[in-house]
């Protein structure tokens, strides 16, 4: 019962956050110089003031701020994100077309970073002053300090140019015409490797540092000593008893980092010409395509909010204490 109530509260709160993003979006659009009518006029190559006024009336731009805001939020919640005059397509279609590529990149990079980070952290926690532990500290410092787009370019120089192992750009090889499902999967996977590793490289540092610290703390706790005293094997104690408890701060951090992962994805997509939301954002900013930019901001916030809900759920599965306190 409690589980259900907490879930409903969280969902309501997530919906509220989403509406807040929309209000912010609209306020930004409203404050920015120029409006939709100007954009239409511009793409038509100049227009007389009367026609401009008529367009403003048609789009409801002469209405008071709050009325416009209301109708904007209403439209957005029905996933009507407006029309892109640059791409001549509804923004929703544009975004839904690009969303899977971004999700694939973000999720795979996040999972890779978590896996590698936790493995590094746990191994170095078992010997906090060992050589591997120092290596992890150094590697995570380097991973954190390198700008992600630069890491990506270096990856391309090394693994596409010097060693021609992976493709330079894109998500699919256009020369493969009628391959079966398997061939396409392998093709996409080959394209995914470098962007995924690049994006993960920033976050491996964070996760390994935190899981190292958390693991060291848990390994020093009483119940671990009890488990050892019972005569359990060290591996069993570390991986069955300690790991699960050491993971909850790491999962919390992973949830907090989601918006940073999506942000990093923008840069990584720009480097690898990955056909996701990030490169769409990049192109529409150059084209000054405001509806598309704001639509992307809305959708990527949605991705983060949904991701946070899932993180929350994962956290409650790992650690039953979470959710009971509040």
């Amino acid at each position, binding site marked *: 019962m409690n589980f259900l109530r907490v879930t409903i509260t969280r969902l309501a709160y997530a919906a509220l*956050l989403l509406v*807040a*993003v929309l209000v*912010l979006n609209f306020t*930004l*659009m409203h*404050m*920015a*110089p120029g409006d939709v009518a100007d954009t239409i006029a511009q793409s038509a190559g100049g227009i007389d003031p009367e026609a401009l006024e008529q367009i403003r009336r048609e789009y409801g731009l002469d209405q008071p701020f709050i009325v416009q805001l209301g109708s904007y939020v209403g439209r957005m919640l029905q996933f009507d994100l407006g029309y892109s005059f640059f791409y001549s397509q509804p923004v929703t279609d544009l975004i839904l077309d690009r969303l899977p590529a971004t999700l694939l990149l973000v999720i795979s990079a996040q999972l890779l970073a978590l896996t590698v980070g936790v493995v590094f952290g746990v191994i170095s926690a078992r010997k906090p002053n060992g050589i591997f532990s120092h290596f992890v500290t150094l590697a995570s*410092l*380097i991973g*954190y*300090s*390198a*700008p*992600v*787009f*630069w890491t990506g*370019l*270096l990856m*391309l*120089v090394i693994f596409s*140019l010097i060693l021609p192992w992976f493709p*330079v750009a894109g998500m699919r090889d256009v020369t493969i015409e009628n391959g079966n499902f398997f061939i396409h999967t392998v093709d996409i996977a080959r394209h995914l490797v470098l962007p995924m590793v690049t994006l993960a490289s920033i976050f491996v540092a964070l996760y390994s540092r935190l899981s190292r610290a958390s693991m060291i703390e848990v390994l020093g706790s009483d119940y671990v000593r009890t488990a050892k005293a019972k005569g359990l094997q060290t591996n069993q104690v570390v991986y069955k008893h300690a790991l699960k408890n050491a993971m909850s701060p790491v999962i919390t951090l992973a949830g*907090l980092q989601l*918006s*940073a992962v*999506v*942000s*990093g994805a*923008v*840069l990584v997509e*720009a*480097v690898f010409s990955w056909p996701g939301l990030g490169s769409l*954002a*990049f192109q529409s*900013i*150059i084209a*000054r395509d*405001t509806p598309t*930019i*704001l639509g*992307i*901001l809305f959708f*990527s*916030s949605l991705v*983060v*909010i949904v991701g*946070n809900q899932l993180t929350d759920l994962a956290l409650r599965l790992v650690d039953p204490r979470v959710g009971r306190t509040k």
Partner: protein
Amino acid sequence: MTDQPSSNAKDDLTSKPSSGPVGLLIEEPIEKARHPFMEAWDMFRRNHAALVALLVLVVIIAGAIFGPALYGRDPFDMVWAPFTPPLQNGGFILGTDYLGRDLLAMIISGARVSIIIGLAAAFVSVFIGVSIGAVAGYYRGWVEEVLMRITEFFQVLPTLLFSMVIVALFGASLPMITFAIGIVSWTAVARITRAEFLRIRELEYVTASRASGARDLKLIFSVILPNALPPIIVQSALMVGSAILFEAGLSFLGLTDPNVVSWGQIIGSNRPYFLDASFTVTLPGIAIFVTILCISLVGDGLNDALNPKLRSR
């Protein structure tokens, strides 16, 4: 003469300060009151990596301040054939970019912009973060609730996309870029400040100050804040690093003032040709990398120096 020792013994037992400075000096000679700053500096000095990093940073900052005047070559001048590799004909130590501009001059000039924006944006975000965190942690109740909801809201927004939107909508001037970075990166500072305020406001000396009539503003700024500073300082140092990274990302994407050179912008503008002339993107990247690495190491050192839990006493 005979009662001299007994009077001494009496003095020792009661240990009056009037017994003379000699006895005091012998009994507790070790601890001399030192300025907390010196104590922190002593701790910081023990971290050799942080010390070296600090030196490198000083060199980089000096280079950013005096470099352009000393080197004397305009970063916008097209001086030689495009894509001249480093140390080849023409005598350009780092070679030339896609327009034949001197890469070393560009990196030196870019240091200024990158570091100034890094510092200014970190200042903006620390200012916002400390204000929100302090008010939330001090007043508690519904104020805290509202401010923390706002903080969570900013955590959900994908930071880079949001600042891209701001810069794209309101123009790519340096103040706007600084604001766009500051407005998205204050949440960590706010959370840390709030946590410190929540802890410190319950301590006895705060209650004592309040009892002796200190007002809210005085309590926040001169009683609680100075004691909450150590973790805020560490976080601020790291903020400078992440602001520089952030600016590099924005200018890599082309969202930068076209009239100035910055590190990310050099990489971004040479990016289309990097498969033929990879040094044009690797070299400016090294400048960013080394700067951020040093800032992180200094941040670690500050953490050791300022975190009271790690101190020996």
